[in-house]
């Protein structure tokens, strides 16, 4: 199976009065269409790892490969393009642009990518919103919907450019069990049908058990 993402000996320190070694020699890979979850105690470095894997954080040592291409050390513009086209990110906390409508929020990454016409983008965005059962809110302002709704919009946005991989930091943290199940099913379906890879941090053991593989983290290291 082709590797979508590969981390080799990732180390990260938080510099301060005493340097804090958050990630210790983390190495692993994610294969095409693989649905992986990360579990671990609070403060063990899950979010920190995800920020590095998503190319947002470049302050680390070690090597990161995306589709077998070394992306460590690439220019910020190149990394922005990779994030835009290939990586969908769902944050631990819902993150939308409050002054834009739901629909515009979902469309924005596709507009930036500019590979499709506006009509196509809008059509796709509506499709993704329908998938997450939130299409009826499409024209509302993002600041005017509930936390769970926001999280679903964020997932729709992560899907808009049909990325290679979705990374989620507790993406179902704000959802009731019905919606959490829906999101899980969508993820499952996408990984099977479209070979979408998923890397999801979750505190939910039940959720994790249903994924292809669980990475156990503890104290900045992979322990299982």
């Amino acid at each position, binding site marked *: 199976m082709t590797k979508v993402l590969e981390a080799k000996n990732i180390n990260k320190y938080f510099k301060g009065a005493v340097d804090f070694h958050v990630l210790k020699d983390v190495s692993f890979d994610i294969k095409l269409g693989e649905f992986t979850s990360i579990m671990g105690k609070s403060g063990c470095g899950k979010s920190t790892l995800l920020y590095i894997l998503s190319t947002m*954080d470049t302050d680390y040592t070690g090597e990161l490969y995306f589709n077998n291409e070394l992306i460590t050390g690439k220019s910020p*513009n190149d990394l*922005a393009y990779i*994030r*835009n086209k290939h990586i969908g*990110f769902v944050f631990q906390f819902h993150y939308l*642009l409050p002054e834009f409508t739901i629909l515009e929020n979902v469309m*924005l*990454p596709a507009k*930036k990518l500019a590979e499709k016409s506006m009509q196509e983008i809008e059509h796709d965005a509506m499709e993704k919103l329908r998938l997450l059962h939130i299409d009826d809110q499409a024209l509302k302002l993002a600041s005017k919907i509930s936390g769970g709704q926001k999280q679903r919009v964020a997932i729709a946005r992560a899907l808009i450019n049909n990325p290679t991989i979705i990374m989620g930091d507790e993406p179902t943290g704000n959802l009731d069990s019905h919606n959490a199940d829906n999101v899980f099913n969508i993820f499952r379906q996408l990984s099977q049908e479209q070979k979408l890879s998923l890397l999801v941090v979750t505190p939910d053991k039940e959720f994790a058990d249903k994924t292809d593989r669980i990475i156990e983290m503890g104290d900045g290291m992979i322990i299982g």
Partner: protein
Amino acid sequence: MKWFLVILNISKTHLLSRIKQSSIAALGVTFGIGAFIILMSFMTGLNGLLDGLILNRTPHIHIYNEIKPNQQQPIHLFDEFSTNLNVVYSIKPKQTQLKIHNAQPIINYLEKDAKVKAALPQVKTQVFYMAGAIDLNGIVTGINAKNESTFFNFQDYIVDGKPEHLVNNLNGILLGIGAAKKMSLKIGDRVQIATTKGEIIPLKIVGFFQSGLADIDNVQSYVNLKTAQRILGENENYITDINVKLFDIEDAVPMSQMISKQFNLTAIDIKTANAQFETGTSIRTLISFSVSFTLLVVAGFGIYNILNMMIYEKMNDIAILKATGFSGYDVKLIFISQAVIIGFVGGVLGLIIGFIASKIISNLPFETQALPTIKTFPVNFDYMFYIIGIVFAMISTFLAGYLPARKAQNIDPVEIIRGQ
């Protein structure tokens, strides 16, 4: 292009969702640019008026025959005394004429020069205006009225009547308004002129001349060139003054030196005659520019502040945009374009307000003795001010937006996302 529209759309949404702050920032620019337009239009209008007062009616070079003692006294010709210190007391000018010798050929020569716009002959003579029991001192100048109007704005100083009435009229006179008042004369009346040779010539008043300077208006009158020659009893070659107007005032100094050397005449250039004048003009322009510049700097700080605040409020948005694939450059452009939109909208509004205010000012009544033909405030509607104004607005808002936008460009999204 499509990408730029996406950026613009984001800035537009940001601006519109903070319409109050955006408007205040834009109004700062409006105020600065409006003040710039009003100040410049009014100040340069005033400058133009003052230019008109002196520069337009003053010849760039005034050529005449000055009566002065000869530098070359007979003793200087005597070789035996050439090494001595010769002192001659009370040298008097020898009997010469005020007439410019060979005036017509000189005028022809000057008019052929590419730098010369016009060279106009005048005949000046002393007279007395006879008013009943007393005689008033006067100066009558013979002119070619049509050319004087064309090149020296002569018509601006004629109240009642027209300079054209002097053309082909050997019996007409444009009487100084002061002299006219003293003698209680009105248009159509006759005034008796006594020449220095004792002749008395009656002339018909076709208009009044008002320069705004009482000393001049009390004595100065204008007649046809030929009339002045007749008053003096001289022929058509008799010319006492030549007034030269150049295309470029900067040529006045070298040209006047050349003329006085070549023709052995006195030639006074306008710069020597009115040295203090140019200083006043440039200082007024400088003041207008510095006041407007200050206003714009203040407006610029306003924009800087508002954008800075906006960026703090928009930290989350910036982090999301970056996380979803917008580059730092995109983010910078979002904020710079906001500043430039504020500058453009505020600037255009400033131009409109400046134009309207200038229009109002130019309709306010303004009466001055010095310029009898001016009835309202002088305002200069030069389109250059509007171009400078909008360019100024765009540049200053761009600069005010640049630093905050740079800050936004360098914001680390991870720090913001983690900070939640």
